């Protein structure tokens, strides 16, 4: 079976005109997406991450047919998005974190009714899908509220439902949890997991919030300055970034820096001390050694901060992507 999404040396070059001096204008080429190749199988859930201006939204815009690529090849479900935009539109759902597809002045319900007719969704299927979304995203009380009166989190949930009413095969989410409170975030993540598991919907998620990725995606694609710098599992990314795990030790009383083999002292604050462990190393022997030598009150292990890991990946100019993608 061919891959569901195929990017082959995909490129997008913008010409930027900049005011240089009073009258002169400078033309400069910006390679927003600079030869990205990767594939996504049907039913995968992929986190697409990178710093601001890395080319994330440009890629999503090409995938959805908003922008025409300047080079390379792109297929989604065998369709070229640039030439067959409206045909593909029926099979995909898009949620732009900052821009709503909902009708500002009208109740949420009216926006959904319009979606039903624009996408020609069969009434029975529409009822089922709407009910499901309303149920899982907790929209029941909001259906008759004009969209402008919804909070950001409520509106985002409303937008996600709107993108799923027509049973899209693929769902693109651009920063879906930006600005949401903790409860809304959890709700949105849980819902996305369900949709992916039950419907086999392929999900591509661009985000700044790495917790989204950690909780949802088995696979991460990291890009920087338009180029792919990592493609693989989260664990692999951690190892690749060479991040260290942190052991937080609460001693019974204040003490000089502890010394145990296999760990390095980082800092202390009163009775609490921070130790660093190399990524991938087991914490058990260190904990055992600590317990033997010091009076311990409490202890916890922190995984390397993924943001830090990614920063390190960027700094090192990328790592060779593992050839075998997870799953």
């Amino acid at each position, binding site marked *: 079976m061919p891959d569901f999404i195929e990017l082959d040396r995909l490129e997008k070059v913008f010409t930027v005109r900049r005011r240089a001096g009073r009258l002169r204008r400078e033309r400069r080429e910006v390679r927003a997406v600079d030869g990205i190749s990767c594939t996504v199988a049907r039913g995968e859930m992929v986190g697409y991450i990178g710093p601001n201006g890395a080319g994330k939204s440009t890629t999503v815009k090409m995938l959805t047919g908003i922008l025409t690529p300047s080079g390379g090849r792109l297929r989604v479900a065998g369709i070229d998005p640039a030439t067959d935009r409206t*045909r593909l539109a029926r099979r995909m759902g898009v949620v*732009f974190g*900052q821009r709503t597809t909902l009708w500002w002045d009208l109740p949420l319900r009216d926006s959904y009714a319009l979606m039903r007719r624009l996408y020609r969704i069969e009434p029975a299927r529409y009822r089922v899908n709407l009910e499901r979304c309303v149920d899982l995203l907790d929209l029941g009380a909001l259906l008759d509220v004009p969209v402008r009166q919804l909070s950001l989190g409520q509106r985002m949930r409303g937008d996600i439902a709107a993108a799923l009413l027509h049973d899209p095969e693929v769902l693109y989410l651009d920063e879906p949890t930006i600005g949401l409170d903790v409860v809304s975030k959890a709700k949105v993540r849980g819902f996305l997991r369900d949709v992916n598991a039950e419907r086999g919907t392929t999900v591509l998620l661009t985000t700044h919030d790495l917790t989204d990725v950690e909780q949802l995606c088995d696979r991460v694609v990291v890009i920087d300055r338009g180029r792919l710098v990592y493609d693989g599992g989260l664990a692999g990314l951690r190892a690749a970034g060479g991040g260290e795990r942190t052991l937080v030790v609460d001693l019974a009383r204040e003490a000089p820096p502890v010394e145990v083999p296999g760990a390095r002292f980082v800092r202390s604050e009163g009775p609490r001390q921070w130790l660093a462990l190399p990524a991938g190393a087991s914490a058990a022997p260190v904990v055992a050694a600590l317990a033997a030598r010091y009076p311990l009150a409490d202890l916890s292990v922190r995984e390397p901060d993924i943001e830090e890991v990614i920063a390190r990946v960027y700094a090192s100019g990328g790592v060779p992507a593992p050839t075998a993608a997870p799953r």
Partner: protein
Amino acid sequence: MVDGLRAYALITGMWVRSTLAYRASFAMTVVANFAVTALDFVAIMIMFGHVDALGGFAMAEVAFLYGTTSAAFGLADLLLGSMNGVGQRVRDGTLDVLLVRPVPVFLQVAADRFALRRLGRVSQALLVLGWSLVQLDAASWSAGQWLMVPMMVLSGTAIYGALYAGGAAFQFWAQDAAEVQNSFTYGGNTLLQYPPTVFGAELVRGVTFVVPLAFVNWVPALRVLGRDDPLGLPGWVDFASPAVALVCCAGAGLAWRAGLRGYRSTGS
């Protein structure tokens, strides 16, 4: 295309339903719109309180010009007036939301914020047109003269509509230039309310050959009113409005496509 028109009907229907939900408020705005768009005709009436003829045209003849152009402009404004907002959508990026829907963007933009209150201008214009027909003793007109009236209004609607669409296409390049469009739409409507004899020959030539506003009413109306054409064009030109309208629409369609293509390649 059929899909697009269906989407246009769906989206405008949505806006109409939401306005009609507040009937009293809606009725008030339509009435107010009707009254207030009539003010520019009141200005013409005041002028004729001081003079008997303007550029050699009597009040009833000017009313005929006013009625035909305003009806056409009002209809185009009702149907496509919202396209003026496309620059704003490009600027804030909300155009992308329309681009991922399975219906043509053009009609989505046209249907956006459809405002039924704009019927106020149309009805006011038709009233003035009716009054002028009575004053001009249109009962004695030939069938040909009569036929030219709806021809003017419909062709005019298409010409103004093409200007709205063309102006919207222009906004893909210059997002802040929405006001230039007003020069041609509102400006054109103001221009065509007065007889061509009032204006300089260059201006008349310009709106005949460059931006063919003259075909909304001037050229055909002069024939209906039995007046001489100041440019001395051949007689068949008086019936050319539908053809001119068609060319305008085709041009606007091409401009829109080019604009959208440009947007999709630059993502400005």
